[in-house]
């Protein structure tokens, strides 16, 4: 598996799963643009690690729910790297609350970033990838988008929406040599899951057939597979990396 000469854009790559994916793609030879929303320092650290591997990398601050900002980010990527082979739609937020208590704003924020953001980024890279007659788009969904989760109506709806969007864009873009797939991570050790109380975590683990939380490296390996030559005949699929939670 070799991504030498490929260029990638990973959203939400300053931390967690996005950071692990960015580093793995770079390790396999890709130049990687590191998008972030707030954590500039950590985005820089990711980019520095990538350049230390001898790849090109730069950071772009961008709220992915803002179409103009997304357009500018993709333009900068193509201007600097000359092409764009891989888009990883990873950026996401949570605003958890029981549905009865959930504020409209909490709903909107999560849908705007986690679902609309994927649409905007996909739309923005399509032009370049269509010209190239090739491209890989990898959307990070979630196991909760497949099986639901109490307290996450917004997040669950957005992640299920990402699966639908993956399939629709896979069908639209297949004739142009662009594949679109989703990864549905289970519960992965990140800042996002670190926030959970210990009790909730234990309860979670009891639902995981493989009996443990996943690691960001598990998701990075799946993303690297979908970005590589070995996955050229795979499109519109949802790859669960969840310890068997959804079967």
């Amino acid at each position, binding site marked *: 598996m070799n991504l030498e000469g490929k260029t990638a854009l990973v959203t939400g790559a300053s931390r967690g799963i996005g950071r692990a994916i960015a580093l793995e793609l770079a390790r396999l030879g890709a130049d990687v643009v590191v998008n972030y929303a707030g954590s500039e320092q950590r985005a820089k650290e990711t980019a520095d690690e990538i350049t230390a591997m001898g790849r090109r990398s730069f950071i772009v601050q961008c709220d992915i729910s803002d179409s103009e900002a997304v357009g500018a980010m993709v333009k900068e990527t193509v201007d600097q790297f000359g092409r764009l082979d891989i888009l990883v739609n990873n950026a996401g937020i949570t605003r958890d609350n029981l549905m009865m208590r959930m504020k409209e704003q909490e709903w909107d924020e999560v849908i705007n970033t986690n679902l609309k953001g994927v649409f905007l980024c996909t739309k923005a890279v399509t*032009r370049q990838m*269509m*010209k190239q007659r090739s491209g890989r788009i990898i959307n990070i969904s979630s196991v909760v988008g497949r099986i639901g989760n109490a307290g996450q109506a917004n997040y669950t709806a957005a992640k299920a929406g990402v699966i639908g969007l993956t399939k629709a864009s896979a069908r*639209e873009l297949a*004739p*142009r040599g662009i594949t679109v797939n989703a990864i549905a991570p289970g519960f992965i050790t990140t800042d996002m899951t670190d926030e959970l109380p210990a009790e909730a975590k234990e309860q979670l683990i009891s639902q995981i057939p493989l009996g443990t939380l996943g690691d960001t490296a598990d998701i990075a390996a799946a993303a690297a597979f979908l970005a590589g030559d070995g996955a050229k005949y795979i499109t519109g699929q949802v790859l669960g990396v969840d310890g068997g939670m959804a079967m």
Partner: protein
Amino acid sequence: MADVLERVTKIIVDRLGVEESQINLDAKFKEDLGADSLDVVELVMELEDEFDMEISDDDAENITTVGDAVTYINSKN
């Protein structure tokens, strides 16, 4: 004018693999030249590059014939 039509024709021939003789101002991309929806989107993208202009999605939707494209480009230059 002739120059614009010539350049547009060349792009259509390259992109859609049709004969130059099939192309006239009234020719519809989809019905007459065998383009699908994505082909039309791509044609518009190439016209943007060729003529160094941006064509909004709203305007692009109204470009359905070779003549529409030529008229649009001339109106912007």
